[in-house]
């Protein structure tokens, strides 16, 4: 039985055994450095109105090219299907390293994202390229396994060479109000990651309100997340502009209160270049341009890359080509 390290005083009383969730309902987390965190309420109408304004920024010519390059370099190129095979992952890795072989100006993506089983294949095909290997681990996407099983899953993926781990929070425990339980779990899984970066998926589509999303964001950051991530892509409601704004504001707030910098990953349903630069505008105007780097911003996507490549071709040639002019994988 793996138990999280005891750190009294950070989120109330820390239990060493985290077998049974019990509702504490008191939400008063502390940061890694021990700062008591303030959590601000979120106004739904105001948040959604602000999120909409980012989509009306007009990005043209030179800004558009910079935005496309940046978006490509921030992609976690993802395949998370039961039918994934070594062959599929090999093709994905090739695409990740050289998105458009005919145009060397197009940068590599940030990482490939696969199930733990396929991490060795991804590592083989990205070795030495600078493209990271991310693995969803810890009973993705539901998280409904014992903590011990989830930790073993993470440790195996890291041992196989994944340098980024995407885990989910226990939404059940969070909604039941057992914040200690969620906090301790994340902390234990962070330890299991060792040197690998930890991205914590909040699965915002299951949290019910922006207030809850803000709260979960603060909790995950306090518990050790290097990135907080919107969603798994496996439920009905994935990333949206208001959700991303809500989390970005939490990140900004956390940085102001603690001085600790955490990244944001948006995932699920981001398919078009236009959507991608709406997110870039959101990040630039909420967190600042220092967040516009693959170290602090990621887009989990698969079909988005090809739409970005088509936009590059349009900028270069002045014509829109079609899907036949980019490779499927």
């Amino acid at each position, binding site marked *: 039985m793996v138990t999280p390290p005891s750190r009294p005083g950070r989120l109330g009383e820390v239990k060493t055994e985290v077998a049974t969730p019990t509702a504490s309902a008191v939400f008063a987390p502390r940061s890694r450095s021990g700062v008591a965190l303030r959590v*601000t*309420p*979120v*106004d739904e*109408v*105001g*948040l959604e*109105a*602000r999120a909409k304004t980012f989509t*009306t*920024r*007009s*990005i*043209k*010519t*030179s*800004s*558009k090219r*910079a*935005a496309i*390059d*940046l978006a*490509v*370099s921030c992609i976690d190129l993802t395949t998370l299907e039961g039918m994934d095979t070594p062959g599929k992952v090999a093709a994905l890795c090739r695409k990740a*390293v*050289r998105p458009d072989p005919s145009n*060397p*100006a*197009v*940068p*590599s993506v940030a990482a490939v994202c696969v199930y733990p089983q396929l991490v060795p294949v991804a590592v083989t*095909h990205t*070795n*030495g*390229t*600078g*493209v990271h290997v991310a693995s969803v681990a810890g009973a993705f996407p539901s998280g409904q396994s014992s903590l011990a099983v989830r930790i073993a899953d993470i440790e195996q993926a890291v041992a196989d060479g994944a340098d980024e781990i995407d885990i989910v929070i226990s939404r059940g425990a969070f909604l039941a109000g057992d914040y200690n339980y969620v906090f301790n779990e994340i902390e234990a899984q962070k330890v299991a990651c060792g040197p690998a970066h930890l991205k914590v998926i909040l699965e915002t589509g299951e949290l019910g309100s922006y207030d809850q999303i803000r709260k979960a964001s603060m909790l995950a950051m306090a518990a050790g997340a290097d990135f907080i991530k919107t969603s798994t892509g496996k439920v009905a409601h994935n990333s949206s502009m208001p959700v991303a704004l809500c989390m970005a*504001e939490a990140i900004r*707030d956390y940085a*102001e209160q603690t001085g600790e910098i955490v990244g944001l990953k948006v995932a699920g349903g981001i398919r078009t270049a236009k959507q991608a630069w709406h997110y*870039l505008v959101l990040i*630039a*105007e909420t967190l600042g*341009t220092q967040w*516009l*780097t693959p170290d602090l911003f990621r887009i989990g996507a698969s079909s988005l890359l090809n739409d970005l490549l088509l936009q590059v071709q349009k900028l270069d040639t002045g014509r829109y080509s079609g899907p036949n002019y980019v490779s499927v994988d």
Partner: protein
Amino acid sequence: MADAIEPAGVKFNLEYAPALESTSIVKIDAEYGLFIGGKFVEPKSGETFATVSPSTEETLARISSASAADVDRAVKAARKAQTEIWGPMSGRDRAKYLFRIARQLQERAREFAVLETIDGGKPIRESRDVDVPLAAAHFFYHAGWADKLEYAFPDRRIAPKGVVGQIIPWNFPLLMLAWKVAPALATGNTVVLKPAETTSLTALLFAQLLQDIDLPPGVVNIVTGAGATGSALVEHKDVDKLAFTGSTSVGKQIQRSAAARGVPLTLELGGKAAHIVFEDAALDQAVEGVINGIYFNQGHVCCAGSRLLVQESIAESFVDRLKNRLATVRVGNPLDKNTDVGAINSAEQLGRITELVAAGVAEGAELYQPECSLPDRGYWFRPTIFTNVQQSHRIAREEIFGPVLSVLTFRTPEEAVAKANDTQYGLSAGIWTEKGSKILWMANELDAGVVWANTFNQFDAASPFGGYKESGFGREGGLQGLAPYVSLSSPKRGSR
């Protein structure tokens, strides 16, 4: 194995490339006459004046200056139309014309938006997304009332006032025109309207629209000109009702004149709204609300949230949030779709803002303005935040009508109310707290015609707008906005 390609020059900054709205849709004539009796006519005075674009200082056109004789002509045309056509017309038929106006405004929305931005300096984002859609909504809304007035005023006999004289300001030229003209026409009145002298163009385009939809001649007459034209209209003996939106000082003169003759009057004047932020508010959205409250339309808004009252416990961090947010506010060419704050409407107004800001500095308030480059030509003022403002400072008491926010602090809700109400004005207020009971208590205590909770600057044709104290009287919009345009009396016995 190929090496990874490093992103080339991936420093994405906020220097969005220019995204200019095309002006080709707008045709501005060299010279405009007065719109009287359904036709554009030469002014009897023969006088014209130039209208300039505040963002370039270029002369756009020459506008006719209406003399007292011209105003008289317009009132006569309105009287004839009222007694012969518009007054006797059924509400259902008046509604048809109002619907036509509304639909035409929607159809020609881009033309009106671009012209409004060229003439007035406001960002195209606002004229496109706020001014023109709201103007159309106002006509739609009042078209709906035109044949249902007996439900608005049950068991009363309803008659139009007659000929209505209306004077509108330069901050929302088309929208204020809609606020004035729509309820007047819906209730059977005819109109003589004077737009502000710096922003006549959309009113004149509106006159062309009225010709296109075949509105009967004389129902709406537009007399352009400055203060002398306005006072000729106010003092005309055959005007049955006056409505004015503008400064409190001019409003007082008009009230004096109208009171002497017993002419019914509604006034929508200045404001010095308090925006009250409690420590338990949704702070990130409150920041948006405060920014929108004061920098919307360059602060040329009578209900602008020009005083921020923030609870002392969060004052410092809240002001930091505001300053951070202000760094992303883009000032510049109003025709650029990425512009948030456009040009100050006139050189005169720029002078007034500059004078009051200098007074703020002299009185010891702390000035903050973000770094941003301003265009070489045109009238511009950096978005400004004053901290360390005391209740007695001029910048906390006088209406600046520019992008200038004065920040004050409070400790308790009672103190917030006392400070908010400590002003000669009473147009609007904003409350930011997640606690509903506090919102309801505050809303009752605040002397303001409009109180927004957890939002600001929201307008709807169905929602009455107007002030207390020296912010004026009478309401515009909604059922309440119809009342000033009708005369009510008891029904004849047995008439129902």
